[in-house]
Every structure is written in structure tokens, then in C-alpha cells.
């Protein structure tokens, strides 16, 4: 593990390892796809080979982009993502078959299958992944577009509220309609706003941590230093609260507080953040019926088995039924849980792949997050450090919010489980997130930071190990 990560060191990129792991991920996904068919109909589905090859081709494409544009990037991150993504498509396919079965039995029309669509979204995601790596050759240049990102991010957040564009699905107005498909813009807005936060905080870093007033033992920065970032943050949270997107507001809040903490190195920000969180949670509980319902359901889901707790309870039943080893793909009934394809995909994993499957998925996410944080740690510039730390933490927090919600650890708020949940915006934006992380990782692990240009740096690779590493 250490040999894979720590610069400065021998300039080994481990791209070959990455390729092998990626092909393994594609093979595993194809096996899962076949297992679903066997479990449901007793035969290997005809699409298995095409599916495995298609996914493999996509992964190889992503790999080639990394090899070409970010040759020193962490070789473990992309295979983890590929594995999660492949498993996600397998599960969506499995749930497709279940709902088709159910529709046939009830004599209704068979609903649209989501797995092929998810494969298309994956293709778009990989395309954007490649595009980001190709276009953004140096992540520090993103800092220049900080305010553009902020504006675009807020605009995207506001879009769903615009009549005619926005769409309300399941009580939350988070979607915009683009022809036949709906997109959840808050996912991509999250990344844009994080770029803004990182750039802004880095530029104001010194003022934020030095010019402060001491209020009851806590250092508070001056309002004008923090102004723009506070505005962006309050605006985004206000929009999300208005759109009843509890999960995303929680995410934005947590990401913002942690990025502020990383930038200023002041624990006081965490305390202030926690205080604000406690205060606003308390207020929200008493002000909003839907927040109260969520908390009450969390405290005792079995009191609301047939009502507001139905989904949570059915998810718990599913995971409990799966036990340690699960029922096997296609052998359980994960479709008993409403929204099994999106928010509750973990319950489906728990039921059919068991605790073993859930732990594997969690470990994959943990690996990606820790690898991302390691890239941030070893990155030489502050912007990269902050953005890398923010992106990694955002991923960790999102996994925590949805998995914690589904397993009953914390009140349930609907966010997607990255790469596993069905949903185009989620898959695409998380591929963008990973592209940025790999870009930062590449910069962090690049043996010779070039004083001139990136192309010159590649030319002088042979001399790399003699160079003194400048750390940011």
C-alpha cells in the first residue's frame, strides 16, 4: 500500500495494476449480472457478455485517459469506483427484473428497465471523467473560475424552483426536466460550490485565521472576510431547505464547515458548526412537520411500520433477512422496499449480498475516501489540498448520511449512494468528482513538479527523483 502512494519515491505509476483491477471489476460485474439472471430465471442472461465487454471497454477508456493525462494518479481509486458502479448496475438490473415480474403478475404494463439507462449514464459519466482529465490539466487553474463556479452552482440549485423547468418528485422539488429525463442539479452544484469554497478560502486563508476577534474564548473572523462564502452557503442551504432536500442541505453544511476547518486549522470552526447544526436541527424539528416525522421514525421505526416508517422498516427487514451471507442475487425480495433502486439500494445489497456485501461496499468507499485524503495531504498547493480534502470528505459524508439513514443509525434523509444508486446526475457528478480527485492525486504523486510547464515536466521525468519536492 505504501509503495503505491508515497511520493517522493521511485516514479512508478502502477498503471498496469490499475488496468488489471479495472478488468477484474468489469468481470465481477458481468458475473453478478449472470448471477441475477440465474437467480431469477435459472438461465445465464444473453446480455451478459455484451454487458461485461461494454463495461470493460468503458473502464479501459477511463484507464487510458488516466494513463495519458494523469499518469501518476492513485491506481486504486478508479478500480474501486468501477467495482461500485458495476455492482450498482447489477442491482438496478436485478430490481428491474423484479418490478417487471410484479407488473406481469398484476397484468400491468412492464415498466421501463432502468439498467440500460444507468449504463448510458455511466457512459456519459466516463466521458465527462475523461473530459475533465483532458481539459483540466492543472487543477490550480480551476481556482481562477471560482466566482463563475459559484454563480453556476447557485443557478443550478435554483433551477428546480423555476416553474416549467423544475419537477417535484416524491415531495421534494430537486429535479429539472430535460425532455424525457429528469436531472438533479444539486449533485453537480455541490462540486461547483466546493471549487468556489476552496478557491475563496485559500485566497482568504491568512486573513481568516489571523485577523479575528476573540469572543468568549473563540476566535471569530471578521464578517467582511467571510462574507461571500457565507452568502453562498446560506443561499444554498436556504434553497435546499425550501426544496425540502434535507439530505443535501446536511451535506452542504457539513462540507462547508469541514472545508473551513481545513483551511483555517481552527477547531473553533468545528465547534461553531456543531453548535449551529444543533441549533438549526432543534429549530427544524419544531418548525417542520416533515423533519419531525423523520426523527420520530428514526427513534422507533416499528411504531410506524405501515405508515411513515414503512420504507425504513422494510429495509431493515430485508437486511435482517439477508443476514451475514445474504440470500444470493435474485433470491431475495428487495423490491418490497420502496425506492430500492435509489436511496435504499444498500438495503438491497444487505438482503441479497448480506453483511459481507455491505461491508465490502463500505470498505470500497472508505478506500476511495482515504486515498482521496492522502492525495490532499501530499498535494503541494493549498487549493489542491483543500479541494481534495473537501471532495473526499463530501463523499464520506454522503455515504454516512444515506447508509446511516438506511441502517437506522441516524434519521433518514434521502441522498443517493454514489455510483450504486440509480440516477444519472449522481453517477455523472461522482465521476466528475473522481476525475478532480485523480487530477489532484496526479499532481501530488508527480515526482518532479515542473517549474515551467506540465509538458516540460513530463519530458524531464528521468531526472525527477533528484528534484527537491516543494510542499504546499
Amino acid at each position: 500500500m505504501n509503495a503505491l502512494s508515497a511520493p517522493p519515491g521511485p516514479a512508478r505509476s502502477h498503471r498496469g495494476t490499475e488496468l488489471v483491477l479495472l478488468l477484474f471489476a468489469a468481470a465481477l460485474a458481468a458475473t453478478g449480472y449472470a448471477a441475477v439472471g440465474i437467480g431469477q430465471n435459472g438461465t445465464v442472461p444473453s446480455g451478459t457478455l455484451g454487458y461485461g465487454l461494454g463495461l470493460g471497454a468503458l473502464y479501459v477508456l477511463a484507464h487510458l485517459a488516466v494513463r495519458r493525462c494523469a499518469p501518476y494518479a492513485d491506481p486504486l481509486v478508479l478500480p474501486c469506483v468501477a467495482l461500485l458502479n458495476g455492482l450498482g448496475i447489477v442491482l438496478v438490473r436485478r430490481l428491474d427484473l423484479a418490478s417487471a415480474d410484479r407488473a406481469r403478475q398484476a397484468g400491468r404494463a412492464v415498466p421501463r428497465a432502468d439498467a440500460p439507462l444507468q449504463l448510458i449514464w455511466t457512459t456519459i459519466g466516463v466521458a465527462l471523467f475523461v473530459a475533465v482529465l483532458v481539459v483540466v490539466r492543472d487543477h490550480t487553474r480551476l481556482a481562477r473560475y471560482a466566482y463563475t463556479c459559484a454563480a453556476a452552482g447557485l443557478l443550478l440549485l435554483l433551477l428546480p424552483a423555476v416553474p416549467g423547468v423544475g419537477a417535484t418528485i416524491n415531495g421534494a422539488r430537486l429535479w429539472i426536466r430535460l425532455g424525457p429525463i429528469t436531472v438533479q442539479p444539486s449533485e453537480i452544484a455541490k462540486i461547483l460550490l466546493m471549487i468556489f469554497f476552496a478557491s475563496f478560502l485559500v485566497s482568504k486563508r491568512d486573513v481568516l485565521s489571523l485577523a479575528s476577534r476573540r469572543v468568549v474564548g473563540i476566535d471569530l473572523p471578521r464578517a467582511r472576510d467571510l462574507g461571500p462564502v457565507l452568502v453562498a452557503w446560506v443561499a444554498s442551504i436556504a434553497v435546499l431547505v425550501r426544496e425540502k432536500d434535507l439530505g443535501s442541505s446536511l451535506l452542504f453544511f457539513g462540507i462547508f464547515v469541514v472545508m473551513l476547518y481545513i483551511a483555517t486549522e481552527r477547531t473553533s470552526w468545528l465547534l461553531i458548526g456543531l453548535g449551529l447544526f444543533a441549533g438549526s436541527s432543534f429549530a427544524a424539528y419544531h418548525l417542520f412537520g416533515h423533519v419531525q416525522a423523520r426523527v420520530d421514525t428514526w427513534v422507533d421505526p416499528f411504531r410506524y411500520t405501515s405508515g411513515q416508517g414503512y420504507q425504513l422498516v422494510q429495509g431493515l427487514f430485508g437486511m435482517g433477512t439477508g443476514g451475514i451471507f445474504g440470500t444470493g442475487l435474485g433470491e431475495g425480495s428487495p423490491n418490497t422496499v420502496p425506492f430500492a433502486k435509489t436511496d435504499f439500494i444498500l438495503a438491497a445489497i444487505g438482503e441479497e449480498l448480506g453483511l459481507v456485501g455491505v461491508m465490502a461496499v463500505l470498505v470500497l468507499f472508505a478506500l476511495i475516501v482515504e486515498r482521496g485524503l492522502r492525495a490532499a495531504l501530499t498535494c503541494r498547493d493549498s487549493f489542491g489540498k483543500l479541494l481534495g480534502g473537501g471532495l473526499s470528505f463530501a463523499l464520506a459524508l454522503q455515504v454516512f448520511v444515506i447508509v446511516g439513514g438506511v441502517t437506522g443509525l441516524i434519521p433518514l434523509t434521502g441522498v443517493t449512494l454514489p455510483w450504486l444508486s440509480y440516477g444519472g446526475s449522481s453517477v455523472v457528478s461522482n465521476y466528475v468528482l473522481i476525475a478532480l480527485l485523480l487530477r489532484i492525486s496526479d499532481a501530488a504523486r508527480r515526482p518532479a513538479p515542473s517549474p515551467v510547464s506540465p509538458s516540460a515536466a513530463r519530458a524531464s521525468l528521468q531526472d525527477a527523483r533528484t528534484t527537491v519536492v516543494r510542499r504546499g
Partner: protein
Amino acid sequence: MNRPLRRVAVACLVLFGMLLLQANWVQVVKAKDYRNDPRNRRVLLRTYDRERGPIVIGTGKDRQAIARSVATTDTLKYLRTYPGGAVYAPVTGFDSLVYSSTGIERQENAILSGSDDRLLVRRLSDYITGRQVAGGSIVLTLNRAAQQAAYNGLQGKVGAVVALDPRTGAVLAEASTPSYDPTVLSSHDPASIRVDYTKLLALAGDPLVNRAVERTYPPGSTFKVITAAAALAGGYTPSTQIPSPTLLDLPGTTANLRNFGGEVCGNGKSQSLADALRISCNTAFGALGIALGADKVRKQAEAFGFGDSTLLLPQPVADSVYPDQLTKAQEAQSAIGQYDVRVTPLQMAMVAAGIANNGTVMRPYLVREVQAPDLSQLHGADQKVYAEHAVSAGVAAQLTTMMESVVQSGTGTAARISGVRVAGKTGTAQHAVGQAPHAWFIGFAPAVNPVVAVAVLVEDGGSLGSDATGGKVAAPIARDVMRAVLGR
């Protein structure tokens, strides 16, 4: 910025650690609770995923399912149906996705559902070969003709019939009315099940109750057989003259015991024990009860099975009771099956069967055979002695003769079958002031080498109201059931 980043890394690990712990909590610690929670639809889907075994009667080409599952096209793959309908409902019970199950459906659920260990080897091989796992079948002892005769006889009445093979204890008929169609409770539509169940609960006569085994009634004069048995065991003979006053003064009370319709028994002073039974003389048996004492009568009743709460058909059977701590007046009333004496129709059938079987009561049973899905036998019937010599063979013979004369020339003439010697005893049990008495008949046939013993109860005397006697209302039903078994 490295120090906060490291701390964030540690915080992320803590978050993932919490998730891993919670996943273990849900999928290991709580897994069993969640897996078996009745609200977990998966339990239901699993249950309805395999074909539930049938409940059948008859053998060979007479084999007939009275409950079976049929394949459907909805989410629950099998639907339970009851071709036996209301005739067999008290025996089969129902299997409902809302209200659990009753009757044989409940008692033999392990076999029917396929979860019984005796099916284990087969289940494993089914699992490996990928064959549809099915439940075993339960073959009952019921005689189709007898069951139908019992149900027909009870039509329009509230009551119960139990017929036993006295030689084995096999239950030949077990009917209870009013009945219901279990199919409405086994549908796949919870809303309609709830509606129908509520309707059944609201109906007069409690159709969901199996009166043959679940309710107890005062046995009335049918209990005189037990009092007579106690007397014969205590040295009386059928020709022993016993006092039979027109009015029996109940000691310690101002009340008197009198005969049905105020009739005079014989000469109004005394008559033989056999005659007293034949015409069902209350005053004679009341006096006899006092003369014998409660202990002797209770001992005789318990020898037939009173007070046994362990009896299973396999459905649980309510205790029949002969009361404790009786005054002399209560002894007299108890001796004629009144006061607090309570019996199930099954218990009275067992009394008749014991006398028919030379004094030995065989354990009643409903399940003749347990079969695997391929109809191979997993388990045969357990024919067991329930009470060896509840009465001696000699007493049994004397009682048989006495009961024959009841049917031949006494209160039970309506039970006569031409060409067959029938033994029996009628009963008319008062149970509440101003309400018609319950009509009873117990008996067996043929008197020599009996093959069927029967008990019939009609609540509130059926349509004949307060003028009913067991001889008029219950005896004809018993006759039809016995004829059905005898094939005449």
C-alpha cells in the same frame, strides 16, 4: 493544512467504523428478529412460494382433498382453497394471511408448509435439484358419508356431531354448525379478508367456533349412563330396584327434583335401574346419585376422560368437568347431568365408544396418515388406548343391553335402524331459565361388535323449542350418521 486533513481522515474512518458496527447490529444481532417478524412480507412470500400440502380424506380413488393449494399468477404463488367448504371447516380450520390459522391448518402447519423435519431430506434434495419444494399431505380419518350426514342433520340448527370408530378411536365425523366457507379467509386480498372475518364474527351462532371440541355443555340425561356405570361398578345390577319418587326432595333446599313433563316413573315408588335408564327417570337417578355419593360418580366420569386437559385431536379439546364439593342436592342434580357438569360433544362420544369397545376408550385421533409430497407415508396413525377398562367388560355389556332398550322401547326410538341393533341414550339439558334445553343423543351401532359411536348435540333444542327432547331432535341425526357409517 496537514493537521486538520489528518484529523478529517481519522473522522472519516470513525464514520465508516460506525456504519460497519451498525450494519453488524442490523444484520447479525437483530437479524433473527427482523427475519421472523410477522410484519416482514418476505416471511409471507416465502410461505406462499411453495405449494402447501393438501388435507385429504379417503383412500385410493376415493381420495378427496378438502383443502388444497392452487397455483396463481399473482405475487403470492399459491392460493389456499377449501373444496370441503363449510362441511369440513370445523376440522380444516382456515389458513389466512391476516388472521393466521386454525384447526388442522394450524396444528399440522409444519407438515403442510413443508418445514417439518421429517421432510428435511426431501427438502434438501429438492433444493439441490432445484425442484419446487412442496408441503406434505395430511390424511384424515373422516368418513365422507358420515360427515355429510352429520352436517346435513345439523342444517338450520346450532350444534355439533362427533362420530368415532370405537375400536380404534378414529374420528369418523366432526361437524359443527353454523359453519363457514374458509376460502373467503384464505384469499390474497387482506381488505376482503378483514371484511369477511368481521362479518363472520358478527354472525349469530359464532360460526368460527368448533362446537365439537371447543365448547362445553351440560350433558343432561346422557350423563345418566355414567351414573349407571358407577352404580353397576359399585354392585348394582340392571334389575336392582331403585327408588323412583314422582318428586325427589332435594336435601337442604326447598326445591324438588321432578321428571320431564312432571311424569311419573313406573309405579311412582321404585323401578329397576334398567327401566330408570330406559325412560330416563330424573328422580330415580337423582336419588341414585345421592346414594352413590359424588366421589364414585366423579371417579367414573374421570375414567372416561373428564378433567383431562391434555387431549389433542390434534386440535386442543376443552376440558369436560364434573364439579367439586357438592352438596347432597347438587349431587342429585349432577347425577342427571345438570348443575355444573360440563362436557364437550367429543367427550360424550368417547363415553359411548368406551361402552361400545368393551369398556376401553381408545384415544380419539383425526390424522390417519402423514404423507410426503410424493404420497409416501411419513407417519401412520397412533392407535392408542386412552382409558383401559373405563368400565369393566361386564359392566359395558350390561350398559349396552340397557342402552339398547332405550332405543328399542324408551326415549330414543327415533334412533332405530331397521336390521341393526342400536344402543343409545337421549338427553335434554336445561341450561338457562326461559331458554329451550339442549337436545342430546349418544349411542353406538351395531350393539354387537360396534363400528360407530356417536354423540349429537343440538343447542336450544333446535326448531322444536322447549318441547324438544333429545329423542326427537338429536336421535334422528345420530341415526343418519350411524347409517352412513354402516352403509345402510
